[in-house]
C-alpha cells in the first residue's frame, strides 16, 4: 500500500505511548497503608483478572487509535476498489488549436497528433466521470462541458474539430480554464494542456500566464502534453499593402509584399504571385530566403476594372498553407478628382500656393490625365460656390480663412466620406480657421492652431524632420527612400499647434513639433500639414518624398473602411449607408458559410458588426441577396507563422516554477497518468475509524468506571 507521506510512518512509535503511560502509572502509584487488606485481597482475587482484561482492551483501543491517526497522516492509498468505488477523477482536456497546430509536414498535422494524444488521455477516464473538452485559440471553444464521459460523444466532438486560424491567447485561456476546472466537482481533478509548445507562446511566458498555470495547479493535477512535430518549416506572407500608384482604371499600381522564412532551413526558389480578383497577374521570383530572413517583394498590376477589387499575394504550398496568402481590397476608380483651393492664387508659372501640389498629383497636367489624378485649382474665394461632391479630395493651401458656408460645406463633404488636406502658410489666420473648422462638435481640425514660428535656434538651414517613425500608411512608403535623401528636407517655418486627443501625428520635426496630423471625421478623414504647400516655408517640395507622400495622402483619404484589411480575430464593423438600421444583412465567411446579421445603428448610420473574424480570406457583405457584395479582407496574425517549438525539456524549464508536469511527445500518457493517480486515499476512512474508536474507548472506559465504581 503506497503512502503519500511515508516519512510520517516513523510516528507509529507513538503507539507505545499508551503502554508507557500505563507502566508509568503503576510506578507513580500512591502508597497507602491500609487496614482492610483482607477485604481488598478478596476483591482482587476475582477482580484482578477482569481488570487486566479491561486494561488490555483499553490499551489495545488506544494503541489502535494512535496507529490509525498516524496511518491517516501518512496518507495511504489503494488501487483496490473492491467494495470501495473507484476514485472519481474529473478531467479537463484543453487542446491547443491555434494556427501553428495546423502545421503539416507530412500526412498528419500537429493537430492530428494532438487529437491522438487526447484519445490516449481519454482511455484513462472512467465512463461517467465528469469531463470537459476545450479547444484553445484566441479564446477557449468548449466542445464538451462538465458532463459524464461518453466515449462516443467525445469522439464525435474531436473528429469534428479542426485548428483555428488564431493565435493562442494563453492568458485569457488559462483564466477561463480555471473556471472550467473549478466546475469539476470530484475528489481528484486533472487538467491536460495538449500543445505543440510553440516557442513564441511558451518560450516567453508572461507573469500572468505563469500565475494562471500555478493557480490551476492549486486546483488539481496539471499536465502539459507535448505533441509530436517534425520540423518547423514555414514561409509566410506577413504583410501586403499598396506601395505606389493611383487606384484608377488603367493605372499601374505597385503592391509590396513582405515574405518571411520562419523555418530553420533556407528556402530556395521562393515565388510570389499577385492575384487580382483571383487571377494571377504577376509572379515574382523571390529567390533564396535564409532562416529567419524576410524579403520585401514588389508586385505590379494594371487595374482594368472599376469597382471593388480583390488583391492577394500567394506563395507556393508548404506545411502551413494558411499563412501563404495575404489579402487586401482596392476600390478602383475611374478617376480621382482633387480640388485644390489656393489661398494665394497667381498667374505666374508655379505661382500660387497649390502649384507644387498640382504638379505632384498630376505631373503630366491635364494633357495626360490617364496616369494621374484630375486636379482642379480654384481661388479660395470661390470655395463657397464649389460643388464639393464632384470631388474626392479637397486640398486647401495657405487659405486665410473661411466663411461659414464654406466651412459647413467642407464639414459635410468630409462627413460623407470625402478627404480634406489642409496646408497652412503665411496667409493662414489661425483664429478664423480655429473658429470655422475647430469649434464644431466634433471639430474638423486635428489640432488647434496657435501661431507660426521659425527655427528658434535661428539656424539658417532650417529644422530637420524626424524620419525614424514612418509607421502610418501615408508615410510608410517613404521607408523605401534612402534616409540621407529624406534627411535633406528642411522646414524653415511652421505653425505651432495643439493636437486634439483623437488625432494622430504622422510626421514631426526632430524636435517633436507636429508636421502632419490626421483625424477622422464622419466617414472621411482630415490631414493637416502645419507648414506650407510650396517651398516658401520648407524645401520638401523638391524632395522625392513630397509627391509620394501627397499621392499616398490622397489615396489614404480615399480609402474606404472595407479597403483596410483586418487581422484575425479583430471584429468586423462596416458602415452601410444604403441600409436601414434593423434590416438583415448577409455575411458570407471565407469558407462560404452565409449568415444573416441585423444591421445596428452606429454614429448615426447603419452598420454591420461581427464580433470576431475567424478565418483568413474575404468576408462578403451584402445588403441583400441581389446587392453587390462588399469584400472585407481578413489576414492571419503574423505571430502564429513562427511555428518553432520547444522540446519537452525546454517546456519543462519554462513552466518549472508552476508545478506542472510535462509529458514529452513520445511519453506514454497512460502510464504517466496511472503513476500520478495514486489511487483512493484512505486517510479519511482511517481518521473516521479512529474517531469512532475514540468514542468507543470513552464509552467503554466510562462504563467500566460506572460499573465497577459502585
Amino acid at each position: 500500500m503506497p503512502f503519500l507521506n511515508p516519512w510520517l510512518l516513523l510516528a507509529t512509535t507513538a503507539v507505545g505511548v499508551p503502554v508507557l503511560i500505563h507502566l508509568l502509572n503503576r510506578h507513580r502509584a500512591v502508597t497507602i497503608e491500609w487496614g482492610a487488606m483482607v477485604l481488598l485481597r478478596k476483591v482482587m482475587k476475582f477482580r484482578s483478572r477482569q481488570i487486566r482484561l479491561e486494561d488490555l482492551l483499553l490499551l489495545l483501543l488506544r494503541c489502535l487509535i494512535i496507529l490509525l491517526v498516524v496511518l491517516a497522516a501518512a496518507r495511504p492509498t489503494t488501487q483496490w476498489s473492491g467494495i470501495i468505488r473507484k476514485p472519481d477523477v474529473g478531467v479537463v482536456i484543453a487542446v491547443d488549436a491555434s494556427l501553428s497546430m495546423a502545421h503539416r509536414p507530412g500526412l498528419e498535422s500537429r493537430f492530428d497528433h494532438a487529437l491522438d494524444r487526447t484519445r490516449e488521455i481519454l482511455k484513462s477516464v472512467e465512463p461517467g466521470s465528469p469531463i470537459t473538452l476545450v479547444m484553445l485559440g484566441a479564446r477557449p471553444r468548449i466542445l464538451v462541458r462538465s458532463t459524464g464521459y461518453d466515449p462516443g460523444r467525445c469522439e464525435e466532438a474531436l473528429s469534428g474539430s479542426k485548428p483555428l486560424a488564431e493565435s493562442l491567447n494563453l492568458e485569457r485561456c488559462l483564466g477561463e480554464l480555471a473556471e472550467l476546472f473549478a466546475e469539476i466537482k470530484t475528489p481528484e481533478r486533472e487538467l491536460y494542456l495538449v500543445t505543440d509548445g510553440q516557442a513564441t507562446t511558451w518560450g516567453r511566458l508572461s507573469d500572468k500566464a505563469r500565475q494562471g498555470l500555478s493557480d490551476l495547479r492549486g486546483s488539481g493535477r496539471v499536465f502539459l502534453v507535448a505533441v509530436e512535430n517534425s520540423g518547423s518549416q514555414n514561409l509566410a506572407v506577413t504583410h501586403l499593402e499598396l506601395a505606389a500608384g493611383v487606384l484608377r482604371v488603367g493605372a499601374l499600381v505597385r503592391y509590396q509584399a513582405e515574405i518571411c522564412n520562419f523555418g530553420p532551413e533556407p528556402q530556395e526558389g521562393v515565388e510570389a504571385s499577385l492575384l487580382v480578383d483571383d487571377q494571377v497577374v504577376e509572379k515574382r521570383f523571390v529567390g533564396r530566403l535564409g532562416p529567419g530572413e524576410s524579403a520585401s517583394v514588389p508586385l505590379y498590376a494594371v487595374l482594368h476594372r472599376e469597382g471593388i477589387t480583390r488583391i492577394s499575394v500567394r506563395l507556393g504550398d508548404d506545411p502551413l498553407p494558411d499563412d501563404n496568402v495575404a489579402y487586401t481590397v482596392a476600390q478602383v476608380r475611374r478617376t480621382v478628382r482633387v480640388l485644390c483651393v489656393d489661398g494665394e492664387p497667381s498667374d505666374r508659372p508655379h505661382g500660387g500656393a497649390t502649384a507644387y501640389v498640382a504638379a505632384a498629383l498630376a505631373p503630366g497636367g491635364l494633357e495626360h490625365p490617364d496616369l494621374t489624378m484630375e486636379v482642379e485649382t480654384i481661388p479660395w474665394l470661390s470655395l463657397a460656390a464649389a460643388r464639393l461632391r464632384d470631388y474626392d479630395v479637397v486640398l486647401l493651401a495657405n487659405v486665410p480663412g473661411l466663411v461659414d458656408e464654406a466651412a459647413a460645406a467642407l464639414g459635410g463633404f468630409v462627413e460623407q466620406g470625402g478627404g480634406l488636406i489642409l496646408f497652412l502658410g503665411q496667409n493662414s489666420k489661425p483664429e478664423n480657421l480655429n473658429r470655422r473648422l475647430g469649434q464644431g462638435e466634433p471639430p474638423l481640425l486635428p489640432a488647434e492652431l496657435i501661431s507660426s514660428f521659425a527655427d528658434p535656434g535661428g539656424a539658417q538651414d532650417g529644422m530637420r524632420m524626424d524620419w525614424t517613425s514612418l509607421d502610418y500608411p501615408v508615410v510608410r512608403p517613404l521607408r523605401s527612400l534612402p534616409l540621407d535623401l529624406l534627411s535633406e528636407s528642411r522646414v524653415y517655418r511652421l505653425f505651432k499647434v495643439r493636437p486634439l486627443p483623437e488625432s494622430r501625428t504622422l510626421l514631426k520635426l526632430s524636435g517633436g513639433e507636429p508636421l502632419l496630423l490626421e483625424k477622422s471625421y464622419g466617414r472621411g478623414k482630415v490631414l493637416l500639414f502645419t507648414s506650407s504647400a510650396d517651398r516658401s516655408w520648407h524645401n520638401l517640395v523638391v524632395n522625392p518624398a513630397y509627391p509620394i507622400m501627397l499621392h499616398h495622402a490622397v489615396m489614404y483619404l480615399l480609402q474606404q473602411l472595407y479597403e483596410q484589411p483586418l487581422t484575425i480575430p479583430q471584429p468586423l464593423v462596416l458602415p452601410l449607408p444604403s441600409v436601414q438600421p434593423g434590416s438583415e444583412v448577409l455575411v458570407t465567411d471565407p469558407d462560404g458559410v452565409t449568415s444573416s446579421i441585423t444591421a445596428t445603428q452606429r454614429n448615426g448610420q447603419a452598420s454591420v458588426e461581427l464580433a470576431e473574424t475567424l478565418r483568413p480570406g474575404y468576408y462578403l457583405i451584402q445588403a441583400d441577396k441581389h446587392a453587390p457584395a462588399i469584400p472585407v479582407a481578413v489576414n492571419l496574425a503574423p505571430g502564429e507563422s513562427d511555428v518553432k517549438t520547444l522540446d519537452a525539456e525546454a517546456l519543462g524549464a519554462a513552466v518549472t516554477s508552476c508545478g506542472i508536469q510535462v509529458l514529452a511527445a513520445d511519453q506514454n500518457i497512460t502510464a504517466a497518468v496511472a503513476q500520478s493517480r495514486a489511487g483512493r486515499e484512505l486517510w479519511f476512512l482511517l481518521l473516521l475509524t479512529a474517531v469512532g474508536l475514540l468514542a468507543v474507548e470513552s464509552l467503554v472506559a466510562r462504563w467500566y468506571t460506572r460499573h465497577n465504581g459502585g
Partner: protein
Amino acid sequence: MTVPSKRKSRYLDPKVLEKIGSLSLVARQVVEGLRVGVHKSPLHGFSTEFAHHRPYVAGDAVRHVDWRVYGRTERYYVKLYDAETNFDAYLLLDASSSMRYGSGPLSKLEYAKFLAASLAYLIVEQRDSVGLGVFDSVLRGFVPPSSTRGAIAIIDRQLQQAQPEPRTDVGALLHEFARRIPRRGFVMLFSDLFDGVEGLIAGLDHLHFCGHNVTVFHTMDPHELELPLSGTCRFVGLENEPEIITQPHRIRAAYLEEVRRFTGEIRRACDRNHADYVLVNTSRPLDVVLADYLLHRSRTAAAGRWP
C-alpha cells in the same frame, strides 16, 4: 434515653476528640452529655435467685412473666427475685496493627479507646464493675473489673499504653475470656474483626454459651467502608501482608459488596448468639454512636430480649 443535642455532637466530633485527648475527660463529657444516670441505664445486671410469684399487674416488665405458669394456669404471674446484682463488664480492645489505620484525625484504635473509656465511665457511674483487656494475637494488658472511680484512671492508663502490634486473633481471645470470666457479665469487643470471621463466631458461641451479654463494636474507618480513593494506589498492609496495586475506583463496587457481605456475616453471627452488633464508623461523632447504642439497648430491654 435522650439523644444528645447537636451542639454536644459537634463537641464530641472525632476531630474535636483528638484535640481533647484525655480519655477520662471525654468519657465524662460523653456520659454527662447523655444524661445517663438521671435515667435508668439500659445496662443492667442479672438476677439469679428466684423468690416467688405474684400476679401480674399493669406496668410490670413483661420479661419477668413466668410463661410456664401461664401455660399451666392461663394466668399471668411475674417472678420476683431477691435482688438485681451488679454486673462485671469487660472491655476488650483490639490493638492489632490494622486498628492503626485512620483516614481522618483519629485512627480506629484511638476512636475505640475513646469509646471504651466512655463506656467504662458509664458503667462505673452506675456502680457496676468494669475491666479492660487489650489484645492483639495475645492478651497484652488486663485490668480486672472494679467499680471504683480509680478504675477509670487505671483503665485510662492501660488504654494509653496500648500500642498496635502486627497480628490479631479475636477468636482465641474470646475463648480465653469465656474461660477466665467467673460469672456472667458484659463483654464489649472493640475491633475491626479483620482476622477471620470463623474464629470470631466460635468465640461468640463460647461466650453466649457461658451466658455473657456480648456487644461487638465493629470499628471501621469510613475509607474502609466506602473506598472513596481514586487513581492508582499501592496498598500496603499494616500487618505485613503483601502489597496490592490497583485502581480503587475500578474495584469499588466489588469492594462495597465485599464489605456488605463481611459486615453482614458478622451481624448474623452476632444475632445468632444474641450479641449486639454495632458498626462503628469512626467519622461519626462519638456521642452519636453511643447514643444510638444505648437507645438500641433500651429498646431491646423493653422488648424483653435480655433477662
